[in-house]
C-alpha cells in the first residue's frame, strides 16, 4: 500500500537523523533519571550514611544520656562527643556544620518538670536540608522524651491532687510514678498505642507499600515526550515540502488524505517505539541503577492501548502543526514552547493537585491532562479499561479534531 511506502521511507529518513534519535529516545531517559529526584537515591547502598552530629554534653545527667541514646537509636544521625569550646571554634572556621549543646542543669530541669532547652548551633552555610533533617530527628527524640516527662508530670500532679485522700501517699510516690511512666514509655516505643499505617489500595495490585518517586514520574515524562514527537512529524513534512519531494508525491496517484495518513503513520510508530524504550528503561534500567523499577500495572495491555491512543493523538497533532506552521522557526521554536507549556500545565512536571487550585478547569482542555490521568490510572493505580474509558475517548476526540483541522488547513502546494 502506498501509505505504507511513504511511512517506510520516512522511518528510514528518521533513523539516519542521529540528532532526532537522541532527542526522541535518550532525552526522556535523562529526564526519568535526573529529574524525578532519583539521582540522589542511586548508590545509597550500605554505607553509613548517617549524619555525624557533634554534641557538647555539659550536663552529663541521666536525662542527657537518655537524649543521646534516643538520638543514636533514631537512625540517620550519629552522635560524637566534643568539647563545647572546640566545637564552637570549628564552626567559626567553617570546619564543622553544626553542634548540639546540652546545657548544664538539663537533667535536673527535666526531672523537676521544668522546661529545659538544648541548643543546635549551625554554620550559616550548612546545608539547610541536613540541618533540617538533624533538627527533625532531634525534635522527634525530644518529643518522645517530653512525652515521658509529661506523663510523669501528669501523674505527679495527680498525686498532689490526691494528696489528701486516704491511702494516697503510698500510691502517688515519685518512684511509683516514674516507674509507671518508664514502663509505659518503653512499651510505647515498641508498640505505639495509636499507630498510622500507610498503604496503597488493594486495587493497585502491587505489594509495595511505599510510593516511589519514579512511579509517578515515568508516566508524566512519557506523556510529555510522546507529545513532543509531534514536532518531529511536523518537521518531516516541512523538510519534505522544502526538498520538493512533496510535489512529486502529489503528482503520483496518491490521495491527499492518504498522503497525510502516510505521514502520520511513521510518527505513530516512532511514538510507540519511544514509549517502549522509556518503559523498558523504567522496568529494567532503573533496577540496574539500584532503584525500584516501575511496572505496566495490573492490566498491561490496557497500558499499551493508552500509549497507542496517545501516540495517535500526538501524530495527529504533528499534522496540525505542519499545516499551521509555515517556517522552520515556527516548527522548531514556537511549537517547542507550546508543547512544553502544555506539558507543564497538563501535569507532566508539576503535580496536578498543585496546579488545579490555580488553574481550575484549564488543564482539562489539554490533551496531556487526559493522557496523564489515563497512564497513571493504568500504570500506577492498576485500574482497567473501564476506568480509563473516558480519558481514551477524549484523547481519541482530540486526535480526530487535530487531524480534521490539519487536513482542512493543510497547504498542499
Amino acid at each position, binding site marked *: 500500500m502506498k501509505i505504507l511506502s511513504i511511512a517506510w521511507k520516512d522511518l528510514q529518513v528518521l533513523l539516519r537523523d542521529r540528532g532526532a534519535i537522541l532527542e526522541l529516545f535518550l532525552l526522556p531517559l535523562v529526564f526519568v533519571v535526573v529529574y524525578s529526584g532519583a*539521582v540522589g537515591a542511586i548508590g545509597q547502598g550500605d554505607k553509613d550514611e548517617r549524619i555525624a552530629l557533634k554534641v557538647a554534653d555539659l550536663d552529663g545527667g541521666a536525662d542527657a544520656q537518655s537524649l543521646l541514646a534516643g538520638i543514636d537509636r533514631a537512625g540517620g544521625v550519629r552522635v560524637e562527643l566534643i568539647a563545647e569550646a572546640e566545637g564552637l571554634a570549628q564552626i567559626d572556621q567553617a570546619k564543622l556544620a553544626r553542634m548540639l549543646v546540652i546545657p548544664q542543669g538539663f537533667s535536673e530541669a527535666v526531672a523537676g518538670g521544668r522546661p529545659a532547652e538544648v541548643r543546635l548551633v549551625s554554620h550559616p552555610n550548612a546545608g*539547610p536540608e541536613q540541618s533540617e533533617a538533624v533538627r527533625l530527628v532531634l525534635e522527634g527524640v525530644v518529643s518522645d522524651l517530653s512525652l515521658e516527662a509529661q506523663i510523669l508530670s501528669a501523674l505527679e500532679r*495527680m498525686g498532689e491532687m490526691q494528696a489528701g485522700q486516704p491511702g494516697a501517699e503510698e500510691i502517688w510516690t515519685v518512684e511509683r510514678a516514674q516507674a509507671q511512666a518508664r514502663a509505659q514509655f518503653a512499651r510505647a516505643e515498641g508498640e505505639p498505642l495509636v499507630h498510622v499505617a500507610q498503604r496503597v489500595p488493594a486495587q493497585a495490585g502491587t505489594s509495595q507499600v511505599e510510593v516511589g518517586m519514579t512511579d509517578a514520574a515515568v508516566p508524566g515524562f512519557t506523556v510529555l515526550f510522546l507529545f513532543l514527537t509531534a514536532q518531529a512529524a511536523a518537521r518531516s513534512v516541512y523538510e519534505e515540502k522544502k526538498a520538493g519531494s512533496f510535489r512529486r508525491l502529489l503528482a503520483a496517484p496518491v490521495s491527499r488524505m492518504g498522503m497525510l495518513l502516510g505521514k502520520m503513520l511513521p510518527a505513530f510508530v516512532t511514538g510507540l517505539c519511544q514509549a517502549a524504550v522509556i518503559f523498558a528503561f523504567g522496568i529494567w534500567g532503573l533496577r540496574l541503577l539500584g532503584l525500584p523499577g516501575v511496572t505496566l500495572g495490573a492490566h498491561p495491555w490496557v497500558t499499551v492501548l493508552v500509549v497507542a491512543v496517545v501516540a495517535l493523538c500526538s501524530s495527529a497533532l504533528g499534522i496540525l502543526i505542519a499545516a499551521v506552521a509555515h517556517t522552520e522557526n515556527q516548527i522548531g521554536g514556537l511549537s517547542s*514552547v507550546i508543547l512544553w507549556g502544555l506539558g507543564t*500545565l497538563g501535569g507532566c512536571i508539576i503535580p496536578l493537585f498543585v496546579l488545579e487550585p490555580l488553574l481550575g478547569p484549564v488543564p482539562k482542555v489539554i490533551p496531556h491532562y487526559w493522557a496523564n490521568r489515563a497512564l497513571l490510572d493504568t500504570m500506577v*493505580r492498576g485500574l482497567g479499561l473501564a476506568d480509563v474509558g473516558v480519558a481514551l475517548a477524549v484523547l481519541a476526540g482530540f486526535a480526530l479534531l487535530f487531524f480534521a483541522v490539519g487536513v482542512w488547513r493543510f497547504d498542499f502546494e
Partner: protein
Amino acid sequence: MRAIKHALAIAWKELQLLSKDRGGLAVLFLLPLIVATTMGAANRAGARSDGEGILVNTCLVNQDAGIFGEQIAAAVESIPVLEVTRVPSAAEAEDIVARGEAVAAIVIPAGLSDQIHAYTPVQVEVIVDPGQPDAASIVTGIMNQVVDQVAIWGEVSYGIRAMLSQSEVLAQAEPNTLRAIEAQSLGTIMATLEQMRRTPAITVASETDEQVVVQGGFERYMAFGFAGMVVMFIFFGVTTSARSLRMEKETGTLRRLVAAPIPRGSVIAGTMLAYVVLGALQTGFLFLVGRLLFKMSLGNSAIGLLVHTLALSLAAAAMGVMIAALARSARQADSVALILGFVMGGLGGCIAMGMSPLTRSGGALQTLALLTPQGHGVEGFYRLMVEGSSLLRALPESAILVGFAAVFFLVGTWRFKYE
C-alpha cells in the same frame, strides 16, 4: 582597536540573526517564563496558610463510636490544607482513592476509643493514591502528628488508672467512686496536657553562628526557583550559539569572513560577545518579571548580580564555541547541546527541589553539582539573592564560572577549524 571593531560588527550581526529567530527567542525567553511562573504560582499557593492554597482531597471514614475517633476526625477536618469528605464505608473510601479521585483515605477503625481505653495498640489506616506521591506524603505526615496527640491522652489516662488500681484502698471503693475519680483525673490531665502542649518539656533551639540577613521564606524560595530557571535557560542558549557557528561553516559565510582582513579570533570573540549580551537579557527579563509578579527578592548587591550574570553568560557562550568546534554538523551540535543542557541543568540543581542548592546537599549529589557550571551558577545566585550576600561572597562562584569559560574557550579555539 580594529579587532574590537570587528568583534562588535560580528556581535551585532549575530544579535540581528537572533532577533529574527522567533522560535529560538520563544524557547529562551518565553518558555522559562512559563515554567518559572507556573512553579512560582504553585509555590505561592502552597505557602499560603489561609486555606486558599493547595487543597489535598481526602476522604475520612470514622467507624469508631467513641470520643477519640471523633477527636481525630475533628482534628483532621480543621487542617486547612486538607479538603475532607466523610464517607460511610471503608470499602467506598478505598475505591475512591483507587480511582485517583482522592489523594488519601483515612480510616478510623471501629472500637478505636475502646482499645485506647483498654490500652491495646490500635492502627489508623491511611490509604494513599500511588499516582500522587507528593500529596500522599503530606497526608501521612499530618496524620502522624494528629495521632500522636491522641496517643498521649491514651497513655496518660491509662497511667492514672494503672496507678489507681494499685491502691488497695481504692480497690475496695465503689465502682462509681472509682469512675468519678477517673473522670476527675482525666479532666485534670486534659487541662494539664493542654498547658504542657503549649510549653513542651524540652525544646530544641536552633541558632546560626553569624547574623545573616535572611529574607522572608516565600520571597526567598521564589528567588531560588527563578535563579535556577535562569541558569538552565542561559545554557539552552548554547544550542543556539553552537548551531549558529556551525551554520557559518556550512553556509560558507565563515570562509568569507576568513578571507576578509580581520583576525580569525574576532569571529569567535564577536559571537561570544553576542551571547553574553543574550544571557544578560535573559536574566534581566526573568528577574524583572519575578520581581513584578512575585516580589521576588533580588538580594542586596546589584553589582554582584551583574558580575555573576556576566560570568555565567560567558561560560555558556564559551561552551557554545567548544561544542561548535567538536561537533560534526549543525544538527549534531544542536542535539548534543540540548542533551547536555538538560543533564547538567538537572545535576547542577536548576530545578529547585530542596531548600538549598545541590552544591550543599552532601554526598554524591553535591560532587556532581560542583562539577557542572550550572551548579556554580545556582550557588552564586543563591548567595546573592537568598542569603543577601555581598559581591565578595559570591565572587568565588563567579570566578569558577570564568574558569569554566576559559577551559571551554581554550578547547574550542584549539579545535575550531576555520576552513
